[in-house]
């Protein structure tokens, strides 16, 4: 039995098919560092991802990995958590996956509040399909499917998350790995649904929301004196004022129960490890209702 784990334990020999310079490399490294620093064993972790460039991340980390269909990483991750509550479950994907096709599941995952972590690599563009605008692309943004400029307004993930009353909300930036590692650690340790939305630039298709763009426009809440991440009002105000372009721990509420702890009769032993044989007495009692 391995007792100490290092970042190396979370690496495998797969070379990501991301473009050189892609922000997702930092996200991958940050997840690996966070898991090692929390002392997780690789087999105790599962990464569940959706479809898109970033969705490939479950294949690049040495843990259990599940790469499902587009937009549905969260339902699959929640199912896995229900089957085995001892696992550390991380759902991951891009902004299209999470806030376009999968937005419905995001809202309801927040509401349901299972103890899982959701990491979104938000690059404001569809990369794998080669450059269409995404739900987080700004109004006026030009893309293959918005040649005259996007006439839809952007989804602001942090605002939606707070609107749905999320219990843990953080945003990171691929250029600030130390902050990102810390945020992912906190998110994993948080008992409930935690979102870490990461500004993770696409160097190939998004020439607007570049590393420089984020560097110039992001407000780092770690450096804002007196910012109180336990105030939902302050969090919402900050997100609106920064148009969502803020990083750090935005909001955290440690006074709520997660979903699993509220399921009537749900046991501490994971379902996957339980004896499935039904107790004949329970069965006999049950049949009486139909007599």
């Amino acid at each position, binding site marked *: 039995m391995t007792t100490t784990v290092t970042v190396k334990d979370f690496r495998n020999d797969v070379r990501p098919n991301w473009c050189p310079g892609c922000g997702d490399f930092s996200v991958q490294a940050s997840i690996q560092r966070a898991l090692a620093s929390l002392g997780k064993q690789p087999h105790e972790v599962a990464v569940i991802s959706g479809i898109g460039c970033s969705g490939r991340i479950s294949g690049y980390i040495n843990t*259990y990995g599940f790469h499902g269909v587009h937009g549905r990483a969260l*339902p699959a991750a*929640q199912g896995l958590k*229900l*089957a085995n509550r001892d696992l550390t479950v991380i759902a991951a994907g891009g902004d299209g996956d999470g806030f376009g096709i999968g937005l419905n599941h995001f809202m309801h995952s927040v509401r349901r509040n299972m103890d899982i972590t959701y990491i979104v690599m938000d690059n404001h563009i569809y990369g794998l399909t080669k450059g269409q605008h995404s739900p987080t692309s700004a109004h006026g943004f030009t893309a293959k499917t918005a040649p005259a400029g996007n006439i839809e307004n952007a989804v602001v993930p942090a605002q939606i998350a707070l609107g749905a009353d999320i219990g843990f909300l953080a945003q990171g930036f691929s250029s600030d790995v130390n902050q990102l590692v810390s945020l992912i650690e906190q998110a994993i340790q948080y008992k409930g649904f935690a979102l870490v939305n990461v500004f993770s630039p696409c160097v190939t298709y998004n020439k607007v929301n570049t590393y420089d763009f984020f560097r110039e426009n992001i407000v780092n809440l770690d450096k804002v004196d007196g910012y109180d991440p336990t105030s939902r009002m302050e969090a919402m105000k900050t997100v609106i004022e920064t148009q969502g372009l803020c990083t750090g721990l935005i909001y955290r509420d440690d006074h709520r129960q997660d979903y699993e702890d509220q399921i009537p009769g749900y046991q501490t032993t994971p*379902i*996957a490890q339980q004896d499935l044989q039904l107790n004949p007495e329970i069965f006999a009692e049950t049949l009486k209702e139909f007599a």
Partner: protein
Amino acid sequence: MLEQLSWKVGGQQGEGVESTGETFAVALNRRGYYVYSFRQFSSRIKGGHSNDKVRVSLKQYRTSTDYTDVLLAFDQDTIDLEAGEVRTNGIVIADEKFNPTAPDHVRLFAVPLTSIAEECGSAIMKNMVSLGASAAVLGLPIETFTEVAEERFHRKGQKVVDQNTEAIRRGYEFIKEAGGADPSFALKSADGTHRLFMMGNDALALGALAAGARVMPAYPITPASDVMEYLIKKFPKVGGVVVQTEDEIAAMNMTIGAAYGGARAFTATSGPGLALMMEAIGLAGMTETPAVIIDTQRGGPSTGLPTKQEQSDLFAGMFGTHGEIPKIVLFPATPEECFYSMGEAFNLADHYQCPVIVLTDLQLSLSKQTTEPFELEKVIIDRGSIATPDMLAKERPDHGEEFKRYLLTETGISPRAFPGTQGGIHKVTGVEHSENGRPNEAVLNRTNMMDKRLHKLEGVELAGSLVRTGDNNPQVAILGMGANIGAIDEACERLREDGITAAHVHLHTLLPFPVQTLQQSLADAERVVVVENNATGQLRHLMSHFGVEHPQVSSFLKYDGSAFLPIEIHHFVKGMF
């Protein structure tokens, strides 16, 4: 004395039609009669005509009768709509309150149901008055209903019990005094055997519980919701969980996530939900994740006829999802089969590591019928090929490379390692993948992996894929599925009375399609009639598709939303000779 009769209660939806029918049926089931109860309702909560038809008999019939002996009407609409099927000299019991009128061929008894109920304490007890009146007409001891009332109301105190038994007694006496206790309507007494009374949906839920299902994500839909509603009450006793998801897409993906995690997981839906699940069903096939999906078929397409009978999801269930995957599709016909089919479905899903769809139809899912008690010992839980921690520690001591979740084997089946197992780390992806689950688009790998998945069910015919009953070398073999079992059986009986020999072939497994078995079971028949509740003859098409041949095949189709009556099948087949 009658060996069987048909009783029907009708009124506005929401005025106690369902509870009156339920009490009547439960009471007679307890006396040892066979009971079959089918409710007609519309997709609204209050208002609109609804009725519950209950067949009571000394031998088992699995469908309603063609006619009604006794009609209990809470409003004039019920008489106007339903008296036509009351047999000549049949009895109509109606509430005096609305000054009922009835056609000449029936005998009308206007009973002050509401006023008696009010005198007993409350107008809502009119259902009890009407049950008392029914007992008198049918020559049943009054205790048939008072005992059930006592049991049902004892928690509310003796006063409520007394009021209700009094209501039953007053209804009973009113009919006696009015001369409605006609011996020609009296039922022979039953032997008092204790059996269960339930709908197909209850049996599906119990089957899942017994089979070890512990995670059920689902989205409410008629006629499937009972399954989740029942299990959400039961699961706390066994540590299971029902999640009411945001939609069927989430339900299916969550089911897959839980199954991947090592739970026995399933969902239940109807046609519209099945359509939403299709992409994820492909994911289950591609990733070889066991998942059980119940589709309680209703009238389609689109919203279609949400509360009506149909069997039109055969193609969707069997062939739905893009690309090609292995899949198993079962179609039980009775509550007993619903119960045991769930155990079978989970074992098949675990063994073949593929999605298993359990089809029912609305009539099977919702009609309540007398059911033989289920035997838990007959439900064997077999999880299939699993790489346990011990095996992994022994066989893979160095943990060097990833576990080969998709190891190419002769059977195409490879061991699963559940997340959390040391030494079992591997990848799962809906992208074409290699043995360790990593994306791999190489030509040879693609062919190998497609062959691996599809080979699992190649040439397989599952035991019990169909049941044949009736005559050898028959003039006609009637082929059917699901709830039509009762109407076909009865049609066969009547054909024999007409001197036409008949066999009934009932199909229980649609995939893998039992080509050989079906071919053999039809071979000795002069003619084959395929009976199904859809407009295009899907089962008939499946025979051609899979190469089941017979020189004389006809289709008898019904897609108006109503269930087949025995008389319809009888007349159709008789007309061919």
